[in-house]
């Protein structure tokens, strides 16, 4: 219960998820989203509004489409042949599907399930996004790398070995490095696809702590298998099942008084 209290106390004034009733436009608005891998339909008519500066968790059993949904938001699905999408994704009211894809991915960053640092130094990993975006000035790069590593709560641990290989640090540190790398281009939205599933509980706690601070400047969408994690950190939670968004609401509501029978069954561990 203590953990549930934390987000209600620390969170910003709660917008009602899925609506703009209080006049706050959602950061991401997804309407009638259908997604296909070839002939297989992975997502069915998903409607969802993700509020700014909140942590939104997506939960559900394996294969329910939550990771696919995440990959629609920054169009990472485009690397998969035969992937096809219909419906509307709006980022601050702009059509994300029609936007220049590089531009979209700079605004919507992503952290993956397994830490995937590049085979380069710690510094070059964080600087990569900036270099891709044609930032060459050494001073600018140094500042941005330090700032991003601090935001990712990694600076103190790596400041003396910035030019060592990114593979020389622990898995938990590597994942925070990947978060720092994503933060370096100053994204408006940060997508995380089960970011702590390959990490131990201590490393996981550090990442959760970090996300909690990040939401002041960033909208966070996290896919997680771990329901306790969703309950601990998320302001809003969506439950996916068989490619459909079954229920979306404030996390407290989802975990305490879910409206749908399927949600309750999943939360209470009856399946999944």
């Amino acid at each position, binding site marked *: 219960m203590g953990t549930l209290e934390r987000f209600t106390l620390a969170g910003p004034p709660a917008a009602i998820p899925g609506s703009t009733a209080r006049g706050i436009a959602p950061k991401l608005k997804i309407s009638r989203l259908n997604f296909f891998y070839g002939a297989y339909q992975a997502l069915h008519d998903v409607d969802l509004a993700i509020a700014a500066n909140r942590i939104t968790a997506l939960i559900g059993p394996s294969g329910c489409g939550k990771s696919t949904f995440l990959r629609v938001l*920054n169009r*990472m699905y485009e*690397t998969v*042949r035969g992937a096809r999408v219909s419906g509307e994704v709006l980022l601050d009211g702009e059509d994300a599907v029609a936007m220049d894809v*590089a*531009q979209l*991915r*700079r605004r919507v*960053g*992503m952290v*993956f399930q*397994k830490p*995937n*640092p*590049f*085979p*380069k*130094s710690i510094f070059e990993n964080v600087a*990569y*996004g900036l*270099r*891709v*975006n044609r930032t060459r000035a050494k001073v600018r790069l140094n500042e941005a790398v330090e700032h991003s590593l601090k935001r990712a709560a990694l600076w103190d641990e790596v400041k003396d070995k910035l030019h060592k*290989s*990114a*593979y020389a640090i622990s898995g938990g540190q590597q994942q925070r490095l*990947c978060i720092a*790398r*994503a933060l370096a*281009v100053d994204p408006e939205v940060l997508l995380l696809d089960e970011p702590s599933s390959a990490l131990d509980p201590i490393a996981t706690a550090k990442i959760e702590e970090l996300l909690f601070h990040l939401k002041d400047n960033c909208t966070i969408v996290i896919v997680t298998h771990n329901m306790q994690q969703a309950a601990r950190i998320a302001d809003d939670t969506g439950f996916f099942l068989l490619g459909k968004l079954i229920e979306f609401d404030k996390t407290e509501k989802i975990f305490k008084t879910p409206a749908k029978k399927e949600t309750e069954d999943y939360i209470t561990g009856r399946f999944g």
Partner: protein
Amino acid sequence: MTQHHWRKLVNGLMFSVTAACALAAVCVLFWILGFLLWNGGSALNFDFFTQLPKPPGELGGGMANAIIGSAQIVLIAAVIGIPIGFLGGIYLAEFGTGAFPFFVRYTADLLNGVPSIVMGIFAYAMVVRPLHQFSALAGGVALSVILIPTTIRTTEQFLRAVPLMLREGALALGASKWKSIATIVVPAAIRGVATGMILGIARIAGESAPLLFTSFGNQYWSRSLSHPTASLPVMIFTYAISPYADWHRQAWAAGLVLLVVMLVLNIGARVVLAPGASHRT
């Protein structure tokens, strides 16, 4: 005998047989090396590397022209073959789905199996005939045709081995596809790719058949790249079938030089590109 003992026996037997076969495979190399040293070691002196061949019957002389000639021909082959093979390999690995890449891949595998002398005939028809001249250029073209398919396939394989999550990591930061290939995928695979290239070069350096009627041979320094040029493998062939004992010794010595060059290239490929020389992938 209990089942436990039987299992231990079979285990021990299989271990011995496989280890013996592995040892036999390795022994061949040292056997050849010893054989070459025994027969050609005495002809391997300073003159061998600095002198031109002496006329038949005269003792001494060397193969300086063939050593330089081989280097020229291999360099020409590398200048033609490495870029084509490397860029073609990138295409196959990164854009390679569909009918055309399948065709390219299949053709490269077929080319890999074509006897090297056929490549020589090809270069003879394409380069020697039009220029009315045997030349280092023709030899280089013949060898490059052998180099291209191996380079294309090894490049492709090592690029494919780069984990998808590294590519995704780059794309997710707003990198374009070619940018992610140039800055992440190729650097991550460069050790393997370069090793493949070096091994391909080592292989063509020892080819003799395609050079017989392309670069031909020359007892003197070649005047230019468009003139007949001596090469070590062809020199070995010419000297080995001659009736002179001194030439036989020099042929052995040339074989020794070729083998050492290949060993150096192979070991060099491993040392220069060893883990620690760059970041681990």
